[in-house]
């Protein structure tokens, strides 16, 4: 009787963890197990199919010797840098402008944000043809009488990467605006009033009082944008297909084509590991800081 009660008590206590267990086990297997598996493959000479004999760092040596990979990394640096900088600039500007008691805010804000609800494939399709010199913007402006107007970046090896920046900024800058707007709305109005009484001009108010208080918003925006930049795949595929040539290759497209079309699975796995390391460098410190709260009583 006493023992039966004890057993029931144990089951009641263990039940919550039993409920969580399947999800957690799934994550451990499908995320961390798979990461280990892929990392292992990156040290093998797997081609079409996985092989399990280790060959050391050969794949990584090959990877960093490949011109495609250095193009992909260069593109990621250009794209990532511009994407983060422009999105942050536009997002912050829009947020500050919208925070001036704009009557139409309720209409404007959703307009700035709706691209976030679209698939990158849709975005890519729209911009692909709009930027196409044969039918899009170039032709339109020429037909309006600006005969010398040229805009052929999407067909230009040097410039194509910037068209991806344009489309990506279009899609996410509204979201960054929302992050900053939430940050602005979280600032104590009394502080702003106090600064005004102290005689601060609007410009100084923003530069010295308001923007410095948006640090958490800057951090969130950076983390989100950086990790999206590293992962960007769909947009490149839809907008340029990695072309012209391989001019807009990115790590994500590189990984896919080396693994599944060029049958260099070992190298593809290596590139995926490098991508994971880049993302982890951004995300892990962020998550650590966010979750490192003191445990208070239950």
């Amino acid at each position, binding site marked *: 009787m*006493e023992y039966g*009660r*004890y057993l*029931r*008590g144990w089951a*009641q206590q263990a039940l919550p963890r039993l409920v969580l267990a399947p999800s957690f086990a799934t994550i451990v297997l499908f995320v961390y197990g798979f990461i280990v598996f892929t990392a292992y493959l990156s040290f093998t000479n797997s081609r079409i199919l996985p092989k399990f004999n280790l060959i050391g760092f050969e794949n990584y040596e090959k990877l960093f010797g490949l011109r495609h990979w250095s193009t992909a990394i260069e593109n990621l640096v250009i794209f990532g840098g511009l994407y983060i900088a422009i999105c942050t600039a536009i997002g912050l500007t829009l947020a500050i402008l919208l925070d001036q008691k704009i009557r139409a805010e309720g209409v404007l804000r959703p307009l700035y944000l709706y691209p976030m609800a679209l698939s990158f494939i849709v975005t890519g399709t729209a911009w692909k043809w709009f930027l196409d010199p044969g039918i899009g913007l170039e032709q339109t402006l020429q037909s309006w009488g600006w005969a010398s107007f040229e805009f052929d970046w999407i067909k230009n090896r040097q410039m194509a990467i910037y068209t991806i920046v344009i489309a990506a900024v279009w899609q996410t800058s509204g979201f960054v605006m929302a992050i900053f707007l939430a940050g602005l709305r979280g600032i104590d109005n009394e502080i702003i009033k106090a600064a005004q009484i102290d005689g601060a001009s609007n410009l100084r108010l923003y530069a010295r009082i308001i923007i410095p208080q948006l640090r958490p918003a800057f951090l969130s925006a950076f983390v989100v944008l950086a990790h999206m930049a590293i992962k960007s795949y769909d947009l490149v595929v839809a907008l340029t297909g990695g072309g012209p040539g391989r001019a807009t290759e990115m790590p994500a497209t590189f990984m896919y084509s080396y693994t599944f079309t060029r049958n260099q699975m070992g190298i593809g796995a290596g590139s995926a590991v490098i991508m994971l390391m880049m993302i982890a460098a951004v995300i892990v410190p962020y998550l650590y800081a966010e979750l490192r709260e003191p*445990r208070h*009583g239950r």
Partner: protein
Amino acid sequence: MASVSIREVHKSFDDTAVIHGVSIDIEDGEFLVLVGPSGCGKSTLLRMIAGLEDVNDGEIAIGDKVVNHMAPKARDVAMVFQNYALYPHMTVRQNMGFSLRLRKADKAMIRERVDSAAQILGLTDLLNRLPRQLSGGERQRVAMGRAIVRDPQVFLFDEPLSNLDAKLRVQMRTEIKALHQRLRTTSIYVTHDQVEAMTMAERIVVMNLGQVEQVGRPLDLYDRPANLFVAGFIGSPAMNLIEASGTAGSATPAAAADDGTALPLPADIRVGEGQPLVYGVRPEDLALATNGAGVEATVSVVEPTGSSTLVFCQMAGQEICAEFQERHDFDPGETIRLMPRLETLHLFDRESGQRLNA
């Protein structure tokens, strides 16, 4: 209804011990108050009785059953929480009937029990409201109603009045006491407010740092605090505690404060020479003395409360408080003489903090 028995109970969170061997026996039908400063372990103890926290060591018994490993629902206790813990999406009636529904009680019976509890608490007109449509006092009553409906063995109250404003708190205090006198259900009531403890309890348990300091009836605690902690905790304004030592030589026992001021002692007490003491006297036990008797004091602040006058002054090198029933209008800086009532003097050992006089 049942007695509750707590035997040598220990509890720690992670690696910090919060309750070190507490034993209390609560009689059937008694209203017991657990009082102490925040962090003294009183709420944890209550939650252990409820079954919301594990017992690391020792035993808790309700009636004659040890309940250490029983789930809360099997213990037949009801609890009133500090924030009332009313289910926000259920009406007052549903809130009060929830536990009976879970026990698959008969619908008509639930209705009847809820109605009668609502009647007792004056909630009849509010039965179909949602918690957010109620005032603080009404929510408080619903929380009590939810406990009454169960007709449990034991009521547990976890600082139920601390979210109410001062006036309502006094009113609810009386209501809870009246309710207990009517139902005579064993009740354990946790509070950090010693006034609440004094006014409501049949017996008080004073806790500090995870241990029981003293158990007793309210006035017994007030009149004869067993140690320095209880002396300082029970009573408002608090007892004056002056560090002193026994002096020898004279025929009658005497003591001197650390600055040399002589303090009178009752004749029937024994203190050794140089024995470190704490000399305790309640504010209302200080009387104005005439023609050179008593101890000299310098007035710093006078606070008239209407019913009495509080005089804060420097005496024996220390800030003390005297409470007079009559009105006085001293000037700051004025020198007065105060005579402690020797029959109600409290003497403690400075090292152990324990009471010395009987």
